[in-house]
């Protein structure tokens, strides 16, 4: 396999143009941490952007950071953390779930668009990408967006790039919005709720004026063992419903008090603060109970997005039918489902139930033979699928970029 390690945007253009001329599809990688997500690609040439790793500009007062796509995520997070800022959408660290080394790039973070618990309040990667320079499948460098939050000049191509899994263009430089880190965080926990009651409790909390920034539910589980960093919060296998409040200290504490009263019908909530709370939300963000190294490591994992109030009904049904394990986030709107291993990862049941609930499901973790047998990404209705394909082709008419990653069979 040829790996082409590009040094600048010009290199990317040259590689893509040569690839078009040679009809040689390219796999686009940063650190390659998420290569296991999606279908096997029809290529033996890799375009590696990890050397495009400069931090171009960080302007804390403008709330923006401009980075080359290969900039290591960990470095960028430390940089902005030093100014007490963060990516408010809490990008997921997929390494524990996928069992890969902890290493990822900004480009991969955007292309995967996997947002964490705060998505319910702050939006996803797509809401924080302000501008991008990229090379299309025409081999042309183009830019979209800008370096300011408020911008409606031309089509917002940033929205398409976020979550496109490298199938539209090769991003070379991006500008992201950063936000101040909250001074304090408080998490209320309710114990012993079944999924339906937990969904109701989360709905009540998210429908309150208390500005909840995380709402998750870990159902009762025989598999959940002690999770590092959580002490007594979790690990006993009993159901745990958690709600996060962030902001200036007095406010977070005050709202925690008010929310606890609101949630009284669901039980007496206990409170954890700052460091312990942060560890808990990292556990949920990175789906640590399903970690590759853990007892559920061999189980395939689905990421299901659905209308939040339908989460419990959908999840309960799936768990009953498959014997699977679940974690709910986004107030029920995101379900992580680890299902007992089968050759098809229970795809027919998952897709049928998820469609009925008005959601969509992505097979985030599964062995390659399973990914060969079923669709990883959720099949769309024919009209929508056709439009999506026309949109894709408008960036990359010969499917030179990440050919086959999103669509099964395209790799043949």
């Amino acid at each position, binding site marked *: 396999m*040829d790996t082409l390690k590009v040094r600048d945007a010009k290199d990317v253009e040259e590689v893509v143009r040569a690839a078009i*001329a040679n009809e040689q599809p390219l796999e686009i990688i940063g650190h390659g941490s998420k290569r296991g997500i999606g279908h096997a690609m029809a290529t033996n040439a890799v375009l590696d952007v990890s050397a495009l790793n400069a931090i171009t500009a960080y302007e804390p007062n403008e709330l923006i950071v401009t980075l080359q796509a290969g900039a290591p995520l960990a470095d960028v997070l430390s940089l902005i953390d030093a100014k007490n800022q963060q990516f408010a959408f809490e990008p997921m660290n997929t390494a524990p779930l996928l069992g890969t080394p902890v290493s990822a790039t900004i480009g991969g973070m955007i292309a995967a668009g996997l947002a964490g618990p705060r998505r319910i309040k702050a939006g996803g990667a797509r809401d924080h990408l302000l501008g991008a320079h990229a090379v299309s499948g025409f081999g042309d460098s183009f830019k979209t967006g800008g370096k300011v939050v*408020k911008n409606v000049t031309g089509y917002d191509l940033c*929205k398409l790039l976020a*979550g496109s899994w490298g199938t539209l263009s090769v991003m070379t430089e991006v500008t992201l919005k950063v936000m101040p880190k909250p001074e304090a965080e408080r998490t209320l926990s309710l114990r012993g709720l079944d999924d339906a009651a937990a969904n109701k409790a989360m709905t009540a909390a998210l429908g309150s004026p208390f*500005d909840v920034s995380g709402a998750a539910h870990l159902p009762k589980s025989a598999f959940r063992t002690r999770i590092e960093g959580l002490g007594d919060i979790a690990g006993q296998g009993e159901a745990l419903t958690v709600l996060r409040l962030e902001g200036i200290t007095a406010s977070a504490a005050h709202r925690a008090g008010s929310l606890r009263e609101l949630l009284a019908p669901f039980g007496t909530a206990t409170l954890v603060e700052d460091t312990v709370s942060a560890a808990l939300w990292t556990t949920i963000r990175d789906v640590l109970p399903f970690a590759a190294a853990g007892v559920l490591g061999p189980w395939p994992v689905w990421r299901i*997005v*659905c209308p939040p109030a339908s989460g419990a009904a959908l999840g309960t049904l799936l768990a009953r039918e498959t014997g699977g394990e679940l974690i709910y986030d986004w107030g029920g709107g995101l379900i992580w489902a680890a299902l007992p291993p089968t050759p098809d990862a229970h795809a027919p049941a998952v897709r049928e139930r998820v469609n009925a609930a008005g959601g969509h499901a992505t097979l985030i973790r599964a062995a390659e033979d399973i990914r060969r047998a079923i669709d990883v990404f959720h099949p769309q209705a024919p009209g*929508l699928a056709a*439009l999506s394909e026309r949109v894709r082709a408008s960036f990359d008419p010969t499917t030179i970029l990440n050919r086959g990653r999103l669509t099964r069979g395209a790799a043949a």
Partner: protein
Amino acid sequence: MAIMMPASDQAVLARRAEIVAALRAIVPGEGVIDSAAEMRAYESDGLTAYRQPPMVVVLPDTTEQVSLVLKYCAGQGIKVVPRGSGTSLSGGALPLEDGVLLGLGKFKRIREIDFDNRAVVTEPGVTNLAISQAVAHAGFYYAPDPSSQIACSIGGNVAENSGGVHCLKYGMTTNNVLGCEIVLMSGEILRIGGKSAENSGYDLMGIITGSEGLLGVITEITVRILQKPETARALMVGFAQVEAAGECVARIIGAGIIPGGMEMMDKPAIHAAEAFVHAGYPLDVEALLIIELDGPKIEVDELITRVETIANACGSTTCQISTSEAERNLFWAGRKAAFPAVGRISPDYLCMDGTIPRGALPKALARIRELSEKYQLGCANVFHAGDGNLHPLILYDANKPGEIERAEAFGADILRACVEFGGVLTGEHGVGIEKRDLMPEMFSEIDLNQQQRLKCAFDAQGLLNPGKVFPTLHRCAELGRMHVHAGKLAFPDIPRF
């Protein structure tokens, strides 16, 4: 008209009677308007300097009718201009002489309010404010609040990706919509997204939002709603220099405080507003900031104190803090009435809409002052200071020969300066026809070609709202052509591993 629109198709115009009859067969009764007198109401939008009666107006009231109208027009090669409430400030809904004006005004029903999923499903003709009003009894609201919210439609908000004074904290339209039903120019009806936080596949909702009516006609929208903050209080802070006000804005953000709204007015705007609404604005300051904090009372009270300290440290000359809703509303009254207030001191004005990095505010204001001298036209400035969105109001008199041209040249220079300072041509009003010919200031031909290719994926014939956004129109076949660069080179001179 200074802006060139696509040449009218004489063959289409010659068949006008036949086209009107065909449209009447789809949309019966008063839904098709073809009399010159009645069509006059549609000849312009909020950018009133440009007027053009359409060939015919169609006001469907079902998605099926929209689909049939578009399918018919696509089959006959007839251009279509969609229109919501017609409040666009960039000419996005300016009709075409040979085009059908497709008004969505009859789509004014809220279809579903779903508090559990914190979503409202609505037809596009519902006004922005009506959505908030419909959910207010349960303490909810729809966050984006463009100043025309009383009149502007949610469909138009999606088309323009409308903003408002609360964008910095709560985002623009694109951050607050979940899904839609859209009819493509072919007549095909598609559903994108729904009540889930994210859609499957590419984020098509994200690309439709802000597409200025060039990609499809939206017939239903799902928006997310939020709980109203428990309370809101405002500070009104005056500064002897614009630079100090700009520094204050930067330090507030630097301190990790994201106000619900942070507005700035310069001296001419302050004077015009005060003369109009008597809000008690200080008249001896060069810049006035209105800073609103919202959230739980305990948080707002604390942040008010922190902001006051920062303002003092930046050398504020006056600082008033609202102690009641009435007082807070009074602070805002002048700002909210700034446009009509300026309308009282000048026969006409042009409202610009560039965005710059916050830090460039003083530089931008200095440039605007220079340009004001150069063009010999007054300019009052109101800004969404929190997000760097400028609204210079250029004062002119349309009855004086040459003034409109001078005002437009002045405006174009301001927008060029915005780009020069690292900003963009439009923050919330859209490109439309107004900024169309300035697009090359910000984008290369390659950038614009990529955007037009995307347009081709939705509307291969280029019949939907042509003449808007793009300065030069290309045929889709031409844009899609792949230029293969010398087949012989095989990854030259790139390190391999």
